[in-house]
């Protein structure tokens, strides 16, 4: 159990910086098409902002929006979307993640590449963010006496 920081400086800094880090994370994920960045880096930024809140504001407040269960769900859903898109390309008789082969669903090959890449970036970002947050939560399990006593 992590208690909220007693220092108002830490609290205000964490609350100020977390939304900015999240905006930067979405920018990095979406911009991964044609610039340095992409799903993994953006996902790590997103997870960093969530972990900053968890560390500074304590478990009770920090876990309110993104609970442990939700983080696990994110990582599973992201991995599923990634694998599912690859399997869609296989179903269109292309290679795994061959975006142009998704055009059997009715899109132009160019549009299929564009949206395929976008969906894969977002899926990887969500999966990485969820996985990192749930790894952190799992590491904290049983870290203190009250945790081991309860549940």
């Amino acid at each position: 159990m992590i208690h909220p920081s007693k220092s108002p400086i830490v609290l205000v800094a964490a609350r100020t910086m977390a939304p900015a880090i999240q905006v930067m994370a979405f920018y990095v994920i979406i911009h991964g098409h044609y610039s340095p960045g992409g799903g993994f880096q953006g996902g790590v930024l997103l997870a960093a902002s969530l972990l900053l809140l968890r560390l500074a504001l304590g478990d009770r407040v920090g876990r309110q929006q993104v609970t442990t269960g939700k983080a696990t769900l994110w990582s599973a859903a992201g991995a599923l979307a990634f694998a599912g898109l690859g399997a869609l390309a296989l179903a269109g008789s292309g290679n795994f993640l061959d975006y142009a082969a998704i055009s059997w669903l009715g899109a132009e090959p160019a549009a299929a590449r564009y949206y395929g890449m976008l969906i894969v970036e977002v899926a990887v970002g969500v999966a990485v963010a969820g996985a990192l947050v749930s790894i952190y939560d799992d590491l904290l399990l049983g870290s203190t006496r009250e945790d081991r006593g309860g549940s």
Partner: protein
Amino acid sequence: MSAVQEALAVTLLIAGALLMLVGSIGLLRLPEFYSRSHLASNTDTLGMVVIIAGLMVFEGWTMASAKLALVALFAGIANPVAIHALARAAFRIGLRPRLENERGEG
């Protein structure tokens, strides 16, 4: 790029590097935890902001320059807060600063 711009950029970069150098010399020379972290916080923050300002002058009015300004802003917030949390945690677990007239074991 004009000569004035280049000279200003190089001056800022050298000033930032000198600040960083002062910081690293101070880390070796100062006696104990609190003075070291205090010095590292000051010189690193100012040195980083000055170096980024030099890079912004080098870059001119571009998108990269705006991103560098954001980096300077957030690094300027995050660095002092991190050192604050570090020093606070050290004080709370019982590390006391070494004062002038006593011999601590920093």
